[in-house]
């Protein structure tokens, strides 16, 4: 989270602003006349300039000012948005990033070059503000002022203005009440009094203007200089120029450290509220504890035990809440790839549409950071090798622009990310040739299609006949695979010749919160992810007996296989007289789970199972219940597959 260092906070925020600006510009490239986008980009530049200047990033503020001015013209309809302008500001935006990270030293030339291009892209330049001209001091002033009637309602207080005048020098104030309307017409919040003021002293006109600065435009104000008094010898005091604050460069504390700011996570306020609630409870328990420490000893052991339990619960809840703070939407990850695809399209001369889905899906921040590189590689692969040139696509009867689709969704304890392109698909012949050449398979060896595709995950394997500038950056699919596996995830590839390829990444969430259905089977409690639950129905004892050995129920004229969890888990308990069937589904496939009791819905913090239980695939994880006990989370995909197998076996048996 952001601490008290405004510079660090600014850097984080500037990074986000730049990302927003970039997104806006990329969108604008497609829809040049979209006013909302123009406004959004302008607002981003505007804020960046404003806060940049406030935090002493002058080079950034100055540079951004020019871009903002250019966009302001577009915003006001004085200039059209053009591809050239978008392209220049995109490159300007990279320069801004550099200015945010450093102090701009040695980057002036780059900046100037961009500004020259910007200049070329627009007509005219921003006017330079005229410096205020100081006026000679006077001996004193006679003034009359009357505020506009609505000034008081709008927050100006005439008494304070008079006070300010008094602070300037010796003051003689007389109120003029001639303009006050009769009582019947008087609006209580309007001010109709005027004031004559005689102000004596060495007061500049600017000082007086400063007093009235906010009301100057609308007020009645007459000012005339008092007749000069007999000349008084004035002694000019030496100005203590050395008292000026030291320049920022000389002051490392306020300067911009070369080191990157610490990592930050943006947190939605309601999650902080949750955390605050826990802390509040903790404080209450703490006060009970201190009361106990100072009070009498009667019954204290029981009280102490209860406090200890309370603290234990709070500590674990606090930890869980804290962990949730680490969850971030994949939108931030996907967002980065838009620029990548934009650049890849430019470099390859292909037209590429990037489509994203499920951007709200949340992943642990660390997991997401480690996903970035593998995904960059996979997207490069899709754009570079997968998608064809527009000519090839048209020849193949496809639309000229290729598509790369990124999607994310949560499934049980996993987040599933797919990277799909509609390109030419993986060339099996080339994969085979390469695998044979590398001695990975024997010439002519019979391989299942999936086995052949798996070859690309071998170290040093690359299907590109020529390693291009884009994809050949030292990492291969083997590195991608290893990274995904280090996250305890899995990578899967599907490819249809001529239709494209789909890479699926399944990453277990180190932690996620899901809505779960808490059920009891025998004496154990289990959580079924609510997203997979279709319905809950009663399994009467008769139905149970009748269906023995069949394990099917008819649900809306469809046979649905069911699994008796009590038997599967070998609970050794008798069935509850009112068993329930929880029907779960993945896609079109359904399976019923027979449980003894449905306890209710449960906000489930997914915890991973120990490595020692990695082979137990029935469970996707575990969670801690309110009483401190553990409930295992059922792996919906596994159970549905199991149910389907059972169905097939029974079908085969007739």
């Amino acid at each position: 989270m952001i601490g008290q260092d405004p510079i660090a906070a600014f850097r984080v925020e500037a990074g986000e602003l730049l990302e927003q600006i970039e997104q806006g510009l990329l969108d604008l490239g497609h829809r040049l006349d979209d006013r909302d986008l123009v406004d959004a980009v302008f607002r981003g530049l505007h804020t960046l300039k404003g806060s940049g200047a406030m935090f002493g990033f002058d080079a950034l503020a100055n540079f951004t000012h020019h871009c903002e001015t250019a966009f302001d013209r577009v915003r006001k309809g004085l200039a059209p948005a053009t591809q050239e302008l978008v392209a220049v500001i995109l490159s300007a935006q990279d320069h801004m990033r550099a200015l945010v990270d450093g102090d701009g030293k040695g980057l002036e030339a780059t900046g100037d070059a961009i500004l020259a291009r910007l200049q070329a892209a627009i007509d005219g330049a921003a006017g330079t503000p005229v410096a205020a001209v100081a006026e000679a001091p006077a001996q004193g002033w006679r003034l009359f002022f009357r505020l506009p009637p609505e000034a008081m309602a709008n927050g100006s207080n005439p008494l304070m203005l008079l006070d300010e005048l008094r602070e300037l020098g010796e003051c003689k104030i007389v109120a003029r009440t001639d303009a006050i309307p009769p009582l019947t017409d008087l609006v209580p919040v309007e001010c109709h009094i005027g004031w004559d003021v005689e102000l004596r002293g060495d007061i500049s006109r600017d000082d007086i203007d400063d007093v009235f600065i906010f009301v100057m435009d609308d007020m009645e104000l007459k000012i005339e200089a008092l007749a000069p008094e007999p000349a008084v010898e004035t002694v000019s005091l030496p100005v203590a120029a050395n008292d000026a604050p030291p320049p920022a460069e000389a002051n490392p504390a306020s300067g911009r450290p070369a080191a990157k700011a610490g990592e930050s996570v943006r947190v939605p306020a309601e999650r902080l509220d949750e955390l605050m609630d826990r802390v509040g409870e903790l404080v209450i328990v703490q006060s009970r504890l201190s009361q106990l420490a100072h009070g009498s000893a009667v019954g204290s052991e029981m009280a102490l035990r209860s406090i200890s339990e309370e603290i234990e619960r709070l500590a674990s809840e606090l930890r869980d809440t804290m962990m949730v703070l680490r969850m971030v939407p994949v939108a931030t990850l996907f967002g980065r790839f838009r620029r990548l695809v934009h650049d890849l399209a430019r470099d390859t001369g292909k037209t590429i549409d990037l489509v994203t889905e499920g951007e709200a899906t949340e992943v642990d921040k660390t997991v997401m950071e480690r996903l970035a590189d593998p995904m960059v590689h996979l997207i490069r692969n899709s754009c570079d090798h997968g998608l064809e040139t527009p000519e090839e696509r048209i020849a193949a009867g496809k639309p000229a622009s290729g598509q790369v689709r990124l999607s994310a969704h949560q499934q049980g304890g996993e987040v599933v990310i797919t990277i799909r392109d509609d390109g030419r698909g993986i060339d099996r012949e080339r994969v085979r040739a390469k695998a044979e050449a590398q001695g990975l398979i024997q010439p002519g060896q019979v391989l299942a299609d999936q086995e052949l595709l798996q070859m690309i995950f071998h170290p040093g394997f690359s299907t590109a006949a020529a390693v291009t500038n884009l994809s050949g950056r030292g990492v291969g699919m083997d590195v991608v695979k290893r990274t995904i596996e280090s996250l305890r995830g899995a990578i899967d590839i599907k490819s249809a010749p001529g239709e494209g390829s789909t890479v699926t990444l399944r990453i277990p969430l180190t932690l996620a919160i899901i809505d779960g259905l808490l059920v009891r089977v025998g004496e154990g409690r289990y959580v079924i992810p609510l997203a997979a639950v279709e319905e809950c129905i009663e399994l009467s004892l008769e139905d149970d007996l009748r269906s023995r050995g069949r394990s099917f129920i008819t649900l809306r004229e469809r046979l649905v296989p069911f699994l008796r969890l009590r038997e599967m888990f070998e609970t050794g308990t008798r069935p509850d007289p009112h068993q329930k069937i929880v029907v779960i589904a993945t896609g079109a496939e359904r399976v019923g789970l027979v449980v003894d009791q449905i306890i209710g819905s449960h906000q489930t913090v997914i915890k991973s199972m120990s490595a020692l239980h990695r082979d137990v695939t029935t469970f996707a994880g575990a969670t801690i219940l309110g009483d401190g006990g553990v409930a295992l989370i059922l792996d919906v995909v596994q159970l549905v597959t199991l149910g389907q197998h059972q169905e097939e076996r029974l079908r085969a048996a007739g």
Partner: protein
Amino acid sequence: MTASILTVDDSPSLRMAIRIALTGAGYAVTEAGDGVEGLAAANAAKFDLIITDLNMPNMDGLTMIRELRKDPAQCGTPIIFLTTESDDAMKQQAKAAGATGWLVKPFVPEQLIKVSRKVLGR
């Protein structure tokens, strides 16, 4: 009594800078991230001064100022807006909307405090 100030700005770093400056000068500061939040905060508690940015998502500063001034409870509450606009049009619009005064960005903390003292009288 400590004067309480509501600051409305979509930039967290700016809000932080403003908060640091104003709390350093002895004011109590409440923050809001846009016009909608600002309005809600102003309805929930009485502030001695409201400082707001103009360019904000959801509800911009102008709209917020207009909404605030519709509320009799906000009659006379000083509202200072922050602007980097070089043209006068925005300034005039904000004043017409009912703002008390303005502060041109970028500003140094001393300017902010000076303006606050000016309209608060303390």
